[in-house]
């Protein structure tokens, strides 16, 4: 008897935790009614081809939000990384170009983290400034002209595949698994949740809060740089403005996935749902010939409503 009650409570809790998947299912059902093309294999595959970059990016952002922060500079890091890799390729070859760019992303992240933790400036402000600065740097470096990628092997990063599986999916899978193991089983990953719950309590326990914060922002910067590399490989261009849309979609995906902006709860599984939701939503709107501008309004409205619903659930808890 007792176990029956417990399992109903557990199912309820799971439903609350992964509510995004219910919303996702709803969207998919709506989509298939709205347009017959939606549920075709070809369409779904197309959606998934766009999956990797938003997902990898949102995974990094998830960790930043879990620790109680935010990073608005990821779009600019993507742009900057893309064009720097393009500029370096002819001079250093693929491997070194990638390594240097990843280090660059890590450094930008570390800089963000340093100002946020040592100077206790709001993450919003620090990363907003960061966003503007690095976007500016990107434009200066290229004088606004995209850098063409002439190295044919570089294409492999995005276009390559193993046994028919596109490489980006493999990157996503690897990062997903690593993130889950890290956040759920590794002590440092748990520190992220602990700090996000209550920084003071974590400090009292002797946890090195500042170091971990800087580490998380560094990791996120590296991930953003990685995304920049994949984007550039995809477009065969180092475009200084390529980072633009990614920021908003990432934040939306993370929040919809249940990782609250205050930190301390949520995770990458929810983010997975959030990213799938954003992609399917976009696809449905496009298939139904909704103009781009109305698309934006629509997406913004749906995200707002979904977050309100999630918030109400959270309030009821208290």
């Amino acid at each position: 008897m007792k176990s029956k009650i417990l399992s109903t409570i557990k199912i309820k809790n799971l439903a609350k935790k992964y509510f995004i998947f219910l919303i996702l299912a709803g969207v998919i059902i709506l989509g298939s009614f709205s347009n017959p093309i939606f549920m075709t294999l070809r369409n779904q595959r197309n959606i998934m081809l766009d999956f990797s970059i938003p997902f990898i990016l949102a995974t990094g952002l998830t960790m930043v939000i879990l620790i109680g922060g935010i990073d608005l500079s990821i779009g600019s890091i993507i742009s900057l990384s893309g064009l720097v890799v393009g500029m370096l390729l002819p001079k250093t070859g693929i491997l070194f170009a990638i390594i240097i760019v990843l280090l660059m992303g890590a450094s930008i992240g570390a800089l963000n983290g340093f100002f946020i933790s040592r100077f206790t400036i709001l993450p919003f402000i620090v990363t907003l400034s960061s966003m503007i600065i690095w976007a500016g740097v990107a434009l200066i470096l290229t004088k606004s002209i995209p850098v063409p990628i002439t190295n044919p092997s570089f294409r492999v990063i995005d276009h390559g595949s193993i046994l028919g599986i596109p490489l980006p999916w493999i990157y996503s899978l690897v990062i997903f698994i690593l993130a889950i193991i890290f956040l759920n089983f590794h002590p440092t990953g748990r520190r992220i949740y602990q700090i996000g719950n209550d920084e003071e309590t974590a400090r009292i326990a002797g946890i090195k809060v500042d170091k971990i914060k800087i580490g998380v922002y560094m990791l996120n910067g590296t991930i953003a740089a990685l995304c920049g590399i994949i984007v550039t490989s995809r477009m065969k261009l180092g475009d200084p403005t390529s980072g633009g849309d990614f920021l908003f979609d990432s934040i939306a995906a993370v929040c919809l996935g249940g990782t609250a902006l205050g930190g301390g709860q949520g995770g990458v599984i929810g983010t997975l749902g959030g990213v799938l939701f954003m992609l399917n939503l976009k696809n449905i709107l496009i298939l139904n010939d909704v103009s781009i501008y109305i698309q934006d309004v629509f997406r913004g409205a749906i995200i707002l409503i979904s977050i309100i619903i999630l918030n109400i659930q959270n309030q009821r808890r208290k």
Partner: protein
Amino acid sequence: MIETKPNNYIEMQSIVKRYAGNAVVDHVDFFVKRGEIHCLVGENGAGKSTLIKILSGIVQPDEGKIVIGGVPVRIDHPSIAHKLGISLIPQELNLLNRLTVGENVFLGVEPKNSLGLINWEELYRKTENQIYEEFAIKIDPRELIDDLSVSSRQLVMIARALRWGSQALILDEPTARLSKEEIKKLFEIVKKFREKGGTVIYISHHLEEIQEIGDRVTILRDAKKIITEKVEDLDLEKIIGYMIGEKKGTTISSKKVEEHDKTDKKILLEVRGICNEKVKNVDFDVYEGEIVAIAGVTGSGRSEIAKTICGIDSREKGEIKLLGKKLNIRKPDDAIKSGIIYVPEDRKSQGLFLKMPVFKNILLNTKTLENLSKLGFYLLQVFKSTARKFVELLNISIPSLGVPCGSLSGGNQQKVLLGKWLTMNPTVIMLDEPTRGIDVGAKFEFYEIINKLAKKQNKGIVLISSELPEIMKLADRILILKKGKIVNTYFKKNLSEAELLNLITTIEVENAEKD
């Protein structure tokens, strides 16, 4: 120079802490032996909280030494206190609410496997066993802290402290939010901890708890240590006497009171059956010209009663009548418009706009603004002259009406706050700790103002205060509040301060149940 006694585990020697020139801890010696339950007792403001904040590394002393186990130490941060084996269990428990019991208990010391990853099975198993063995209670280690009761959360904090290897626990008012059974349970656990050699510093206002569980007690008064003595050598009367500095055994009523014949005065406020989470079925009346004090220990619900009546906290049941007319108060504005105002405890964050000038602070409320404005605009001159009237009435000393409120002294700020509310000509004023943090001179001025408001302007005043001398000076009647219930009402003239303290700190023997 005090010598270190060998069986003293914790020694705080001649500790001094000052805030803004005032010593809140004044050369206090606090020695705790290993394996004892040492109670720390004193009225609000006596210095207890600050002293233990110093011991747990939250605050640094200005003077004095701390010696732990014979070794002089500097406790710069709570994590150092933990390394020394001292854990504070504060009133506001610091746990990670969205995480599990197990993760909280093992915070920072999680068991790992050979890959360096956390072994959750082991963590949860050990947590469950630890709690069962040490507390004889079953708590699901996978439950979230958010879903636990207050008493369970407390146990989790204690379990965490034990897992961190604490040998001394500081419990700060642990029973404030616990039921009788939960208190019994807590005592069992504390006693067991002592049996195993643990040391406990126990802070409480509930003196009968001290007698039940304490080995020795240290009494503080006005930032100084008065005495440390074995609990068995002291009785309740003596303890209270030391706490307030009166001679023991006083049962004669103290001051001469302006004789107040209730029967020919109007009744202003009638409160019946007010209920919500913190307030249990409260009834009382306030008559014209009367000062009614609500007395009780921390957490008894004093502010909550006032906040509920004034629409700040939500009211589940109950009736409020003002001058005989029933009121439906659902939000603060309702209370204000009806003529009942609440002057909050925290003037800085709940009452004043510190950056704005004095005259704006006094006049910034909807009623006054409505009265003084024409077609939605106001004349600066009218504003200032109205404000000036109240500045004179309350004797607020300011260089000019335009100075920002933040630059005034505490006493003057409090006067501005009061002025703000007086401009609305209320019928009943509820004052919550009106003279907290104000120097003695300003305090007395305030007492005169409050008396004037009641006796000359015939307002009804509800005074919430933890300073018993203040209540004894001002109140006509005193309501004794315990855990949200008004257990009794006394005329001030029939009580001494010692008796008052006794009343609010001892447990009420409920008629139906008996221990």
